[in-house]
């Protein structure tokens, strides 16, 4: 059965597993490792060879109180920073879990062989990162981000791949997942997917399905994200009638290389680098007098955007900012930041040990996603109350557990991946041991998951992927960027609404079966579009400024009305609110206060 035919559910061959993980990045391979090591028949379905996943691009590190730099460090200080960084809509039970379980998860990575940089004592090297403090913000800057030079994501991802090889995980590499299969009880029983090379298509049936599909930064025209970051898991969840949470919260990283978008790590500023405007002024001193260039990312990006808007940008068009590292000397720059040196030379044609790097705030990370509890179980809302979706889990960037709330701290994404990938694995193991049983899906249910592929294969004309993608990306870039306001957003929403029909009926001119990347890009475009529209509608609905969501027309944080998660369903295009968790189990909750850096 090949992917270029019109396919009937009853003809579809089946593959069976105990657990499947859609996505071979950090969270996916941490989850699969947990399952494979417990003897379950586990498969990772990844549209690229796993080490090509976007985790590989993470540079600076993984933040965790392992007490190497400071023996007195405390995970509760990390928790405080994360809650404050989230602008108080991070769930405190989840943040507590991540920060307290973190050291275990990081040491496990080291035991698997991850090549962390080392201190003179032989322990894991930790560097300062933005938004990091000691003693609940009272003890000055902390150095809590564990690093493998500036290739931490690469080291982590390859280590997890290696560990999975050792554990005997099945890899369905270069397979593309089309849609989830749900039974009549709305439980998830697997996914319809095809092998990209051969075009062979299957119903992959599983007792547990984990979404680990990563982010969707490609909804914007300018992004640090890989070309594969197309929000496949978000698209699948929304089409399955499940909600997304806080999807309006997009992080713009302060230092994307100007003109190209490639990231240079916050570790540059952690190692002592700083930003300057066209007058050579270290302007962050005005915006964040205490932490300066190491304020949290939303604060720094807004300051940069403001400098540019007020005419103090660098270059002939005064449209970017400069990141200085040259004062650190070639020793520090080339030794601690070798990857940044390479990227700067390649994409900005500068050696950062000699000249500053031109940078602009660039779309980087999706704080929102598919809501889950701390066990990785996906949550939907039924009659206003949380309800677990049986058979479905999510971890990593696609999930919103929520540890990042309105703004993620640097170094917390890699920690999120391993802690909650692991947590999802542990809870699946437990639930399968208890004999969790899902009702089989009918042919009709499977037909549903096949519908968009069949539509694409039957397409005879209409707009093609590239045109639709460019329209959407420019729309998102212009109307839903660092600063947002109602009139622009409403226009953006309208334009998206006008494109929906064309996106659902996208024209695929090349209908070949074998390694047809045009088919994949069309399917990815439909996923991106779901993320874009969810972002747009929710952003307009949240009438306040919080975290990364900054509005010109509602400039203040509104705790009375919006100390809440947003919840969005695509079927009705409606936004509702969900309570933020203020009930950590071992510490007192941190109450909202003014967020100054």
């Amino acid at each position, binding site marked *: 059965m090949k992917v270029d035919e019109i396919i009937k559910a009853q003809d579809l061959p089946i593959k069976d597993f105990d657990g499947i993980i859609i996505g071979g990045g950090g969270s996916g391979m941490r989850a699969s490792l947990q399952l494979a090591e417990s003897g379950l028949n586990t498969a990772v379905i990844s549209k690229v060879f796993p080490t090509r996943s976007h985790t590989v691009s993470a540079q600076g590190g993984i933040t965790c109180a392992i007490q190497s730099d400071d023996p007195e460090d405390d995970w509760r200080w990390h928790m405080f920073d994360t809650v404050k960084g989230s602008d108080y809509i991070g769930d405190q039970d989840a943040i507590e879990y991540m920060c307290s379980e973190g050291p275990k998860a990081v*040491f496990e990575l080291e*035991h698997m062989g991850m090549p962390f940089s*080392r201190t003179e004592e032989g322990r*894991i090297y930790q560097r300062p990162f933005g938004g990091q403090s000691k003693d609940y913000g009272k003890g000055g800057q902390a150095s809590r981000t564990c690093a493998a030079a500036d290739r931490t994501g690469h080291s982590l991802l390859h280590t997890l791949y290696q560990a999975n090889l050792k554990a005997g995980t099945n890899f369905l590499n270069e397979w593309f997942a089309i849609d989830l299969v749900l039974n009549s009880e709305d439980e998830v029983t697997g996914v319809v997917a095809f092998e990209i090379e051969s075009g062979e298509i299957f119903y992959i049936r599983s007792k547990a399905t984990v979404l680990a599909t990563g982010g969707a930064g490609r909804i914007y025209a300018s992004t640090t994200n890989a070309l594969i970051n197309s929000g496949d898991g978000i698209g699948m969840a929304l089409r399955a009638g499940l909600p997304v949470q806080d999807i309006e919260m997009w992080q713009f990283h302060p230092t994307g290389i100007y003109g190209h978008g490639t990231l240079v790590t916050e570790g540059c500023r952690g190692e002592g680098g700083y930003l300057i405007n066209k007058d050579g002024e270290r302007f962050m001193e005005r915006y964040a007098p205490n932490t300066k260039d190491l304020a949290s990312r939303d604060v720094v990006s807004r300051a940069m955007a403001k400098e540019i808007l007020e005419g103090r940008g660098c270059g002939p068009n005064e449209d970017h900012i400069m990141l200085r590292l040259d004062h650190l000397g070639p020793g520090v720059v080339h030794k601690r930041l070798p990857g940044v040196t390479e990227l700067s030379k390649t994409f900005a044609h500068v050696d950062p040990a000699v000249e500053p790097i031109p940078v602009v705030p660039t779309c980087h990370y999706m704080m929102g996603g598919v809501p889950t509890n701390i066990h990785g179980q996906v949550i939907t809302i039924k009659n206003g109350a949380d309800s677990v979706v049986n058979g479905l889990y999510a971890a990593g960037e696609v999930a919103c557990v929520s540890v990042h709330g309105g703004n993620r701290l640097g170094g917390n994404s890699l920690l999120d991946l391993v802690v909650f990938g692991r947590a999802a694995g542990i809870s699946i193991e437990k639930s399968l041991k208890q004999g969790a049983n899902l009702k089989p899906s009918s042919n009709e249910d499977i037909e549903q998951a096949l519908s968009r592929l069949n539509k694409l294969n039957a397409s005879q004309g209409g707009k093609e992927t590239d045109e639709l993608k460019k329209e959407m990306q420019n729309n998102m870039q212009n109307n839903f960027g660092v600063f947002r306001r109602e009139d622009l957003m409403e226009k953006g929403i309208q334009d998206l609404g006008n494109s929906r029909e064309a996106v659902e009926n996208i024209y695929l001119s090349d209908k070949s079966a074998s390694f047809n990347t045009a088919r994949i890009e069309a399917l990815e475009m439909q996923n991106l579009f779901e993320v874009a529209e969810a972002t747009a509608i929710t952003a307009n609905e949240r009438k306040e400024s919080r975290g990364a969501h900054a509005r010109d027309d509602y400039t203040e944080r509104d705790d009375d009305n919006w100390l809440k998660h947003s919840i969005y369903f695509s079927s009705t295009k409606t936004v509702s609110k969900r309570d933020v968790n203020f009930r950590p189990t071992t510490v007192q909750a941190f109450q909202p206060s003014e967020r100054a850096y």
Partner: protein
Amino acid sequence: MSATIPLEEVKTLTLNIYRFDPGKDEKAYMQDIEIEVPVNKDLMVLDALLIAKEKDTSLSFRRSCGEGVCGSDGMNINGKNGLACVTPLSEAVKRDKLVLKPMPGLPVVRDLIVDMKQFFDQLEKVKPYLITKDEDPEQERMQSPEEREELDGLYECILCGCCSTACPSFWWNPDKFLGPAALLQSWRFIADSRDQATEERLDDLDDAFSLYRCHGIMNCVSVCPKGLNPTEAISNIRKKLINRKG
């Protein structure tokens, strides 16, 4: 990867690309695709391919990060293996020509995409993971900065395949000679102060083909987009094997 490429001043560039679709082509052929590129901006080969794909959506190649760290877009660029996303046109285009072919020595799946199974099979043979006998400590294992430095130039490998597919020894014996990428990984673990399986690793390599088919041609070194040196890693393993016999 650029968001919007200003196209005011453009020139024409002809890409000469290897084409093969197993669903319709009996044989592979070379096809010219003309694209317009900006005069005053140096694009990468990947940018040129993305522009070409807008003209002909059936053109297939792998790509992901666009910044030389994921290893997806290894290909043969004007006769030399490299990553499309970090190879600038100014460097790649010779006499107004840009010839793009799949990496040599592996079966072609479609257009610029090769079947990398053989490459990964060889990688798996070197047990590319840390092997320890002692129980894991509660915290991390200790490793001095000097011990860690031994891994520099080894752990950065992105598994793009540029080296092994530029290696004549790998072309002749892709099933028996492990190839530079796999051997670099083998040395990465032998060199790791935390690994406790050096003897088994050396035993596995001690035959006529796995390692010893390397003839020091050093194509691997000249093409590695990360500037790594598999030949040196192979010679380090050789020395270990010799010393052990000595």
